[in-house]
């Protein structure tokens, strides 16, 4: 049984004149101890789908209208507020993108770090303090016994993100959801934080769900990948399958459009034409169809179901089975 199983999740946002289908029928799972990536561009619904798992969607305007989120055998959507509150931090923790805004500026690091532990683990403040110092030391903060007394503003971006990692670890959750954990950080610091998270996950047998737009990060750290476009997962598979044998034109488009460090100047980038659609006014049929260079008449009529190929490699494209042949024949609009 997977640790986390999201089934047909639909999270919509309601305003006076429109319904924005930020997440519209998303299913994925995370096994204990593995690293899974949810990949997509801004506005594809990847953050909303992870916030839905934590039930941190502002309500209204947002609402989880359908689906199940099964964590450790229990449907989180059936829990009451209090029971859900006990899951957050204790069993599922979250690391946010902005280390500058996700810590409270007027509360010391110590209070922020020990608060959850005393509440969730029922340990004394003194024990919590000792553990907090150990955690700061583990995530690589020098002089943890001194720095624990300080406030977030004296920490650099990288250091704050380390504090966030320590905070996420504090109650020894089984799953950490990291929403663009290093996007706001510099390259050399990014590598430090991601390596740290990966080491800790291995060391403590935690699962990681990484939400990112960076395919390089995914290639380096993820075991399995789910690619999202316009509120749905359009392809999923193991990291190796997705990169070596992409079966959806959007995945292929992403891979062809990013410059790579190992390719020389002038290697051809093939951009994806047009722009991601407006989620409150999706095109008919497949959402990617207006930008797809292989689109056929059928594509604008009906949304293709996600189809399993093999090894849990699946794609939501009508041409999933002869995708390679189509790419090679170079059919383009």
């Amino acid at each position, binding site marked *: 049984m997977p640790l986390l199983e999201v089934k047909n999740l639909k999270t919509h946002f309601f305003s006076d004149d429109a319904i924005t289908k930020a997440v519209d029928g998303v299913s994925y799972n995370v096994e204990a101890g593995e690293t899974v990536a949810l990949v997509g*561009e*801004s506005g594809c619904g990847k953050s909303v789908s992870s916030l839905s798992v934590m039930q941190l969607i502002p309500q209204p305007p947002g609402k989880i209208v359908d689906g199940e989120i099964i964590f450790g055998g229990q449907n989180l959507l059936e829990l009451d507020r209090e029971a859900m509150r006990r899951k957050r931090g204790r069993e599922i923790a979250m690391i946010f993108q902005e280390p500058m805004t996700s810590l409270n500026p007027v509360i010391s690091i110590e209070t922020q770090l020990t608060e959850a532990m005393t509440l969730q683990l029922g340990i004394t403040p003194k024990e919590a303090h000792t553990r907090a110092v150990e955690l700061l030391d583990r995530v690589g903060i020098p002089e943890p016994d001194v720095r624990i007394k300080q406030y977030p503003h004296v920490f*650099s971006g*990288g*250091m704050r993100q380390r504090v966030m990692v320590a905070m996420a670890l504090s109650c020894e959750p089984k799953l950490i959801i990291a929403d663009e954990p290093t996007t706001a950080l*510099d*390259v*050399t*610091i*990014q*590598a*430090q934080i991601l*390596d740290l998270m990966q080491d800790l996950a291995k060391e403590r047998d935690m699962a990681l769900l990484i939400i990112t*737009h*960076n*395919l*390089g*990060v*995914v*290639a*380096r750290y993820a075991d399995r990948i789910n690619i999202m476009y316009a509120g749905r997962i359009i392809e999923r598979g193991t*990291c*190796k399958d997705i*990169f*070596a044998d992409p079966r959806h034109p959007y995945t292929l*488009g*992403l*891979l062809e*459009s*990013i*410059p*790579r*460090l*190992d*390719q*020389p*100047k*002038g*290697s051809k*980038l*093939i*951009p*994806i*034409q047009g*722009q*991601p659609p407006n989620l409150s006014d999706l095109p008919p049929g497949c959402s990617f169809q207006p930008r797809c260079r292989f689109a056929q008449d059928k594509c604008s009529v009906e949304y293709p179901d996600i189809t399993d190929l093999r090894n849990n490699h699946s794609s939501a494209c009508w041409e999933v089975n002869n995708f390679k042949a189509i790419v090679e024949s170079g059919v383009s609009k």
Partner: protein
Amino acid sequence: MTSATPLLEVRNLSKEFPVGSGGFWSRNSQTIKAVQDVSFSIQPGETLGLVGESGSGKTTLGRSIIRLHEPTSGQILLDGKNVLDLKRSELQRVRRRMQIIFQDPYSSLDPRLSAGNIVGEGLLIHNLTSSKSEYRERVAELFELVGLNPIMMNRFPHEFSGGQRQRIGIARALAVEPEFIVCDEPVSALDVSIQAQIINLLEELQEQLNLAYLFVAHDLSVVRHISDRIAVMYLGRVVEIAEGDELYKNPTHPYTRALMSGIPIPDPVIEETRDRMVLTGEIPSPLNPPSGCVFNPRCPIADDRCPKIVPELRAVGDDHFAACINADGYGAVSANS
């Protein structure tokens, strides 16, 4: 470097910013040395990539070159003539030849001007068109050049997407027919699928108009893709400069090596076997930089001499310069490992 006269030559450029001192009565104000003693040249039609992390001074350097900041010392030679000696009126003429494209397509366009007026402003300032109809024609032409429909001329910036706004920014820079453009992180605010559109556009325009670029970015993958030569900056100094392939194949400065290995390659098979070097620590404050080589506190191969000597750029290969006293030794170390 090639023997032909460069279009642009920067010599020993430094830029310091005074910062607020300790208190009201305190007299000695401190300075931040944002750019220190930087020299390089750019040929017509060439792209020099400038890569570095936040606080490395790359943006300040780019802006100092077109005198959006007044450099503290050094020379900027355009066709051999020092731009820093020019008077205001002369500077305006030179500005026609040097333009900039900014990072943030949201804040760099005046929200109260129509897209057409943003693009055409330079034409009016420099009197490049003689009649209203010629002006409109030229603006329409610029819109088409960057892949925007001229019908959109009367729209305002908020009606455009990020990628389209960046196209407006590019058209604005091209309006005065420059020879040299500073591209300051032109794609880092854009989504992955839109980035490639803008990168391709910049490359096509370069070929068509023989533009020279100084391409400033933190993402070495993007810089490698577009640049002929690459300069790596750390804490205000250029620590290594070389032709793109040479830099990728033989990175010599330990910081360049770390920066490269920090960037994941989107291919899990390559990633599995890649040599990785993860730096410890963070960029020190430019207010209080380390003595000697600024990289020495984070450097894996630093020795006793490094905190004492400020290393100069010296040749380590063909057209390849690095500022590290242990650069040769490093090659030997990595060959052994």
